[in-house]
């Protein structure tokens, strides 16, 4: 079966690397983007099976990106996971309204990440 492609969007390179490292080890193909704008560009140019994105980012934040991405061709039903913190419950609702599939609360460990991803892609 083809390897699932995941787009990881975060302005923190260490978080991106951690996500990338963990998911590659779990058998996914991971592409990184460093903010919302970068993320949108990458999703427009190729197809991903899942998108994981931070919310607080420069240039374009996560919620804006999700809203825009849902309108992109082929992204109507792609799972989009947002990274939130306990201190921002309202962001969760906003992300949901924008079309996010689910969320993962920071801080998280690699196992938690993989288990959430597996909820959303095979």
């Amino acid at each position, binding site marked *: 079966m083809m390897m699932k492609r995941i787009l990881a969007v975060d302005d923190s390179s260490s978080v991106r690397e951690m996500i990338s490292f963990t998911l590659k080890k779990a058998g996914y193909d991971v592409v990184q983007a460093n903010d919302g704008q970068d993320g949108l560009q990458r999703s427009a140019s190729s197809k991903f099976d*899942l998108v994981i994105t931070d919310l607080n980012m420069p240039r374009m934040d996560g919620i804006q990106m999700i809203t825009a991405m849902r309108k992109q061709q082929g992204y*109507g*039903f*792609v*799972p*989009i996971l947002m990274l939130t913190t306990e201190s921002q419950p309202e962001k969760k609702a906003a992300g*949901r309204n924008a*079309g*996010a*599939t*689910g*969320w993962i609360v920071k801080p998280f460990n690699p196992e938690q990440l993989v288990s959430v991803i*597996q*909820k*959303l*892609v*095979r």
Partner: protein
Amino acid sequence: MSVVAIQAPGSDQFRAAFREEAVELLRDLEASLLNLQDSNEDPEAVAGIFRNLHTIKGSGAMFGFTILASFTHHLENAFDAVRDGRVTLSRELIDLALQGIDHMRGLILNAHAGDRRPRMALVDKVTRLIASGTPGTSVVEGEATPTPQVVPFGDSRVWGISFTPGPDMMRFGSDPALLIRELAGMGQLEARADLSQLPSLTEIDPERCYASWELALYTGADENVIRDVFIFVEDLCFLRICSEDIEEAVAVPAVAQTVPDSPEPRAEVDPIVRVDASASPAAIKDRGPVEAGSTSMSPQQAKEAKSYDGGDRGGIRVAASKLDQLINLVGELVTVQARLSELALRRDDNEISSVAEEVERLTSSLRESSMNVRMMPVRNTFERFRRLVYDLARDLSKSVNLTIEGAETELDKTVLDQLSDPLLHLIRNSMDHGLETTGDRLRAGKSEQGHLHLSARHSGASVLIGVSDDGRGIDIARVRQRGIERGLISADAVLSESEIFSLIFEPGFSTAVEVTDLSGRGVGMDVVRRNIEKLRGNIDVASKPGKGTTVTLRIPLTLAIIDGLLVTIGDQYFVLPLAHTLECIELSRAEIDRSEGKQLINVRGELIAYIRLREYFGIEGDLQEFEQVMLVDTDSGRFGLVVDRVLGDCQTMVKSLGHLYQKINELSGATILGNGCVALILDPHRLVQECIRSLHPSARAVARAPAGARASLRAGPGSDIADANSNKIVPISRSSAPVGA
């Protein structure tokens, strides 16, 4: 359904009742399936099977057996399709259904039972079969579920989950199938999808989920963990999660889990004795709510189920251990009553005597009633072997037709239980060594299908159980040869046919050329004899080369208490089982003298040989002027047993002899009399056999001759009895056997 009814089914009491009902339904199902293959497609039988499955599914779901219900659903679908003619009833489907039944039984008896893999493989095959309408191609079995299963133990329970995705769920990137697979990873999951809400092709929104699911999840995870699976879709779907407490603590005793692949009959399935309890309306009433509650069974269905079952559901079920206790108590009571009668006799007190008589009468009826309760028809034991025969025939690629006769014959429950194993071995042996392959049969000019016959019938206080086949028979020369090789007999031994046949029950004996999994390792047949002897029964083998073999087991009706005649020889008490005793004739000194040591008595023109027990057991004491000849009916014909005095009837509780004395074949046990003395219980069959064995060969030939030849012995003077007359029974000195615990 009333509110009360909704709450009630969860209780253990109802769950236990459901288990019993379901186990019976499964037994019926199994029987119908096995019958189907005989009579091909019988619409009524198929409808009956469908109904049974439907009942199990419906009631199962109601009493919290969700996995069972869900699994049953697939089989029900299959038979629904057969009913509608969408699927042809193939042997493959019957096989699948039988395997399914095994699995369901496991699920019923042990709610946690059942590995998910075989179940899923079964479901897969069944669904494929339905889908294709014809026997499907063989499907992945071993690798059916590649995802490793983490099945948590401990506080596991079944969760019922209703899951209906809302119209928008997929627009948020969630795939319901993934959520369900995630649940499957948490334990054992049975899923049932409902696609009934699908619109037409023109109306369907291709990107919307119209399916909904009913799920049963057996897991150690708690509700929060389960809810977590749905965390991203909580607001996008309808979700209901409820726990069905599945903890045991039901009246059904712990039962070995059945293994679907095992060809063993499910002898352990029913540890419960059915009691014909017309006398216990209260108990029947207790069952009332269960039946009222099981809405899946209409009165009509219930009635049909009854007649399907062969009638009687108006009984109660009692754990076998409770009955054993009752019988023990009755046994003790019988002993005490004997002491009371003895006391009354000695005191010569009319008042006590009349009370003693009353107690005796009541004890006797009580004993009879309680023994009766333990009596069960051999039907269930026999019918269970249908499945064994079916499976074995398939495994051995033989075609075998099993017929059953005398299924209504009753035996003590304990005896029946212990009969299962020996019968299993005998049937296996017949299937494996006796019955030939179809090719061999045709070459031998026999019918293609082999015939195996199980029979039961009464014979006095015994039941004769027969296992017959029309196979190749026992090769007597080979058995003899093997017996010599194994050192069981000497090379020049003169043996009767039946003595040679009985060698096959010697430990380590086997003539099978090819050792198979089924039998032929030489284990088994000696176990048969041991088990039957434990039951105080015996085995007889008859076989004709090329024609078949019949093994007959003679089994006493009951083990616990017997009716006997109390007799004395010198100062030693003996009990003769009444069932074998025909009549009692006085034998005077003068007659003995007249017979010139021939030991024959003339009974209304018939000459009958007698055995002087005083001499046989070497008991000292003065000879009586008149002795008593007890005429007994044995496998070897009628014989007389000579004793000093007959004291009268007695009911005795059989105690086994200490194991040092168990080798003394002539005795089947001992009992303690009212006066505290020990009486030995005689086994007339064995006694006579031992006597015959100690005679010289020519006499043995006469005594062992078939009935026709024996008739000439009884015919009186003129026929060729001279030879028999010349044979004295050789007295054998034996010390009277002491009694063990």
